[in-house]
């Protein structure tokens, strides 16, 4: 098939927009999202400005959180270049460069797409080529979209589509592309430590880069790509990247919970959407509760799913999860314990694929027995709580606060005199839930 370039003679939004009357809403039926999430009732689209970070940026969550978010420079050099909001100089943080408002224009010479399936394969190959680990394409649905204004990191997404309702946007842009990167498995084992932070933050920067490059590429193909419009988790679940777990994270069959859900791309590029998957997360989460047991703030529920805003799912308490952060800021940035202990979070190797394959090919009524067996194996071989000692660069998750010992093998430097610390001595692996009791009030 030859590649043809054709001039667009009609506006990008086609003929739907002109004739459509927003009053008569012919909403598509609620989408099937797999077994882990169900849309059961009326859903009010979430305004992104009411989500944790924007709330905190306005100071609505109290002084300690506000100061942590706005006025805290990290002691750790790698955190200062890789974590949002804790830099000494924001120019050192790549995401502030990448996540600016897109200045690029849509290419007027639109590439004709004769075969959406070929384009789907192409977009996925492109995303993988740029460095994404998992790519999923979801059919857009109004319930996936944010209400109100758009969420773009620097707050300047003033385009023609900003004032449009979710229904109108979905009609014009029927597909959502979610591409994501996986965290490094070995570094994640040092969760609640700067090493774990680097697993999280560095792959987050990579993911931001890949999605921005993909957004630019779609514009170069001659199609529109909108960011800051779609709820990432909804796109991930609907696009078959994974299922929603008890810990509120999307769990992938290869990487488990150690993937990001970055801001996806809403587009009018003709594609073929993926289906939600069943990899047994639903059956596993019903029984396992490892994340709920180990969560330092009891933010993960032990009980059943609840219906929240018309959606049946496990509902985590984001506020208690969030409130911990200012108090542990010297030791770690992102807790990550719920992702590290999840039995699905394993190296992407054959025995992990085999276990997930066994689970997902198992008939659903038999699965609880298999889950009990797999969980027993997981507890036995990998531990109820992951607490392996990880060393990377100057960091060592075995060092406690106050201990300034240099544990780098073969280091003969004196490390004395100037009174300030060796790189990497900040960091404290806190294995016990009791350590956080004094920070968080429990009901």
């Amino acid at each position, binding site marked *: 098939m030859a590649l043809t370039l054709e001039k667009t003679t009609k506006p990008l939004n086609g003929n739907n927009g002109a004739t459509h009357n927003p009053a008569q809403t012919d909403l598509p039926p609620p989408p099937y999202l797999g077994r882990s999430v169900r849309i059961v009732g009326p859903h009010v689209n979430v305004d992104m400005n009411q989500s944790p970070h924007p709330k905190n940026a306005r100071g609505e969550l109290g002084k300690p959180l506000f100061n942590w978010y706005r006025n805290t420079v990290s002691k750790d050099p790698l955190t200062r270049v890789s974590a949002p909001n804790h830099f000494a*100089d924001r120019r*050192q943080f790549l995401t502030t460069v990448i996540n600016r408002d897109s200045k*690029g*224009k849509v290419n007027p*010479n639109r590439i004709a797409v004769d075969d959406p399936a070929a384009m789907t394969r*192409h977009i996925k190959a492109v995303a993988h080529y740029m460095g994404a680990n998992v790519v999923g394409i979801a059919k857009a649905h109004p319930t996936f979209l944010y209400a109100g204004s758009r969420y773009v990191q620097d707050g300047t997404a003033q385009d023609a589509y900003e004032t449009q309702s979710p229904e109108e946007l979905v009609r014009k842009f029927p597909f959502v592309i979610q591409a994501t990167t996986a965290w490094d498995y070995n570094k994640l084992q040092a969760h609640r430590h700067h090493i774990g932070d680097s697993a999280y933050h560095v792959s987050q920067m990579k993911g931001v880069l890949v999605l921005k490059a993909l957004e*630019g590429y779609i514009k170069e193909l001659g199609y529109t790509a909108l960011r800051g419009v779609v709820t990432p988790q909804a796109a991930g679940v609907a696009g078959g990247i994974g299922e929603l777990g008890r810990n509120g994270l999307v769990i992938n069959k290869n990487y488990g919970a150690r993937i990001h859900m970055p801001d996806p791309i809403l587009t009018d590029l003709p594609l073929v959407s993926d289906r939600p998957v069943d990899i047994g997360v639903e059956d596993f989460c019903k029984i396992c509760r490892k994340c709920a047991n180990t969560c330092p703030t009891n933010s993960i529920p032990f009980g059943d799913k609840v219906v929240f805003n018309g959606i049946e799912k496990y509902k985590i308490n984001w506020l208690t999860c969030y409130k911990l952060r200012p108090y542990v800021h010297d030791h770690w940035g992102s807790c990550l314990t719920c992702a590290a202990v999840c039995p699905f979070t394993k190296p992407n190797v054959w025995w992990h694929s085999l276990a*997930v394959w066994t689970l997902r090919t198992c008939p659903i009524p038999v699965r609880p027995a298999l889950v009990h067996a797999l969980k027993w194996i997981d507890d036995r071989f990998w531990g109820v709580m992951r607490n392996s000692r990880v060393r990377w*660069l100057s960091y060592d998750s075995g060092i406690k606060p106050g201990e300034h010992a240099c544990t780098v093998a073969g280091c003969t430097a004196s490390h004395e005199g100037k009174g300030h610390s060796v*790189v990497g001595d900040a960091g404290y692996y806190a294995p016990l839930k009791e350590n956080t009791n004094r920070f968080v009030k429990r009901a």
Partner: protein
Amino acid sequence: MRLGPFKIPWVREDSQKHDPYWDFFINTPPADMANTVTEMIRSAPEGNVFPTKAELHTPDITSSHVKELASYLGTDLVGIAQLTSLPTAGESKSKGDDTYPFAVICAVQADYDPRKAPGIGGQVPVQKGLFITFVLSAWIRELGFRATAVLDPNAEKLAVAAGLGILDAEGRLVTSKFGTRIHVANVIRTDLPLAPDG
């Protein structure tokens, strides 16, 4: 290619051969450069050096940490060259070579030569290289040492000085692992005490 849960590693899915859009991705230059991430990173200003110097280990260990971080960020080959002892230093047009004692050279594998493939896909190695050098040089500045990552016409010569490979007749870098399919990213010049290779 998969057989149930098992990957068959010797049967590769070569989707690019049957992809009608792949040539556009690799070879068609972007109509608007603002759509490329490479342009965004290139035009970004450099940050400040952190006022307090971090206490370092020995130069050998610092070098291994720089290399470890570089490969974690996605470098395929990394080396450190000493700038003062470089025989080609006289040819170098850029000033300030003498004030920076070391150069960190990162190279990424390039399936298509970025000099001949101007498409967004052909520039992916450049994009990866810019990501690595941006974060790595920012990290060195946060350690309290000066570092600057700039496009350098002598990058391939410095790569040879850092022991990554040799130059062929056309002046291209040839490495033992990737041959000429390698892109040398921006050179990071720094005064971080390192132990040069090569």
